């Protein structure tokens, strides 16, 4: 795989909610196959940044290119872009009115990427990959948190995305379930998925991240390989934050 193509290009991204300026000036490039981890205090704009990347939030300024397509352009077909950008949420957001299998099949069938039978086989294979073959017919309310999040990841993967966005995927989980979700994410990283991960799991960031961004107050204050950020952070705010969480 060509490792140097730019998958996500963000330049001078700004985002405000009414008067509140949440993202002030964010510029960052993510290469294909790269795993970028975003850390930072609560309210610093991490979720907002991630949600701008698939236009769940509309940028107020700047430019966002996903695989060469400018999604801040009003004329771009955002749904087509979203098919290739999977997102995993803190609170899973599995479709409560559908079985696990139908959760996985909905988008591929509805968007006519696959016929029903292919989609079914594909969904079952994906469930096997996250270790949940026996839960195909279960409903979301019958699953544990860790199982829900693995289903959510499988659901996103069924669209064969090029990029995966994770917003604190383990924050709503009981401690004993964090491991099983991180395991799936670790596997994804190893097979070369481009990933942007907001997380408080510093161990995961250090082990799996190719690059760590420290965000505070709507700005990226520091970025570098995990050894740099965790080993010898230069910005005092980064040091302060790491002292608190580690």
């Amino acid at each position, binding site marked *: 795989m060509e490792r140097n193509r730019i998958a996500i290009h963000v330049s001078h991204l700004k985002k405000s909610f009414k008067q509140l300026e949440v993202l002030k000036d964010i510029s960052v490039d993510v290469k294909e196959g790269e795993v970028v981890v975003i850390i930072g205090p609560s309210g610093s704009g991490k979720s907002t940044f991630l949600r701008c990347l*698939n236009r*769940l939030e509309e940028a107020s300024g700047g430019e966002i290119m996903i695989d060469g397509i400018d999604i801040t352009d009003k004329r771009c077909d955002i*749904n*087509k*872009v*979203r*098919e290739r*950008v*999977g*997102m995993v*949420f803190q*609170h899973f*957001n*599995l*479709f*409560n*009115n559908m*079985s696990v299998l139908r959760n996985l099949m*909905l*988008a591929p069938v*509805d*968007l006519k990427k696959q016929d029903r039978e292919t989609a079914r086989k594909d969904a079952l294979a994906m469930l096997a990959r996250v270790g949940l073959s026996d839960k195909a017919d*279960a*409903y979301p*309310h*019958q699953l544990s948190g860790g199982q829900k999040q693995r289903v*959510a990841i499988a*659901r*996103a993967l069924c*669209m064969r995305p090029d990029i995966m966005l994770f917003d604190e995927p383990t924050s709503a989980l009981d401690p004993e379930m964090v491991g099983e979700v991180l395991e799936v994410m670790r596997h994804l990283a190893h097979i070369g998925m481009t990933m942007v991960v907001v997380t408080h799991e510093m161990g995961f960031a250090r082990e799996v991240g190719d690059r760590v961004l420290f965000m505070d107050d709507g700005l990226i204050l520091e970025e570098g390989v995990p050894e740099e950020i965790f080993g010898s952070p230069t910005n005092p705010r980064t040091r302060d934050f790491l002292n608190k969480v580690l």
Partner: protein
Amino acid sequence: MLRIISTFGRLLLTAMGQTLLLALYGLFFACIIGMIVGIMSVLRSRACRFVAAVFVNLIRGVPMIVLAYFIFFGVPYLWNTILGVGGMTLSALHAGSICLALNCGAYMAEIIRAGIESVDVGQMEAARSLGLPWWRAMHRVVLPQAIRTMIPSIINQFIITLKDTSILSVIGFPELVNTAKNVVAATFMSFQTWAIVGLMYLIVILLLQRAAKVLERRLKYGAQ
């Protein structure tokens, strides 16, 4: 009591049939109006939300009896005499159905709006993040969940609308109350007649509630 039943039973049953027919017409169109206006009130377009809010507030602010007089007498008068076009006749059934549909439709719209808003926004976001267009996400993910929470309120509204058909006796539609008045006029047995009429409404409404319970149970996830 028995004399009323043996003499006027058939007449009262027919009137009940007319009441149900009127309610059915009204409810059918009310569902359509409610769905359209309810969805309009959760759209991003300000204009749509404004139109929806005006409709709902207008209908809620006017007593149904006034609405009934307005549609049955007022609108044809406007058309035929004031505008001078002429030729418009509106049967009591049509006027009554329109009146019920508008009235019930406004309340249904509110029920549907509240139902949609009660579904966690994360459901819509997850569907959109997979690439589903807004309408598909609404149709496949949000509405099915919203409707489930709406069933009790919708049945309740159906019952209110069924009772509201009695108001339409004022425009001369031969529904149950109107017919009962005639029976009382002919027999002077008002106690017996109104007791029978009350019982008839009660039975239909109890049956409706029973059906609602069954429907609610059927719609539980993972129960099939």
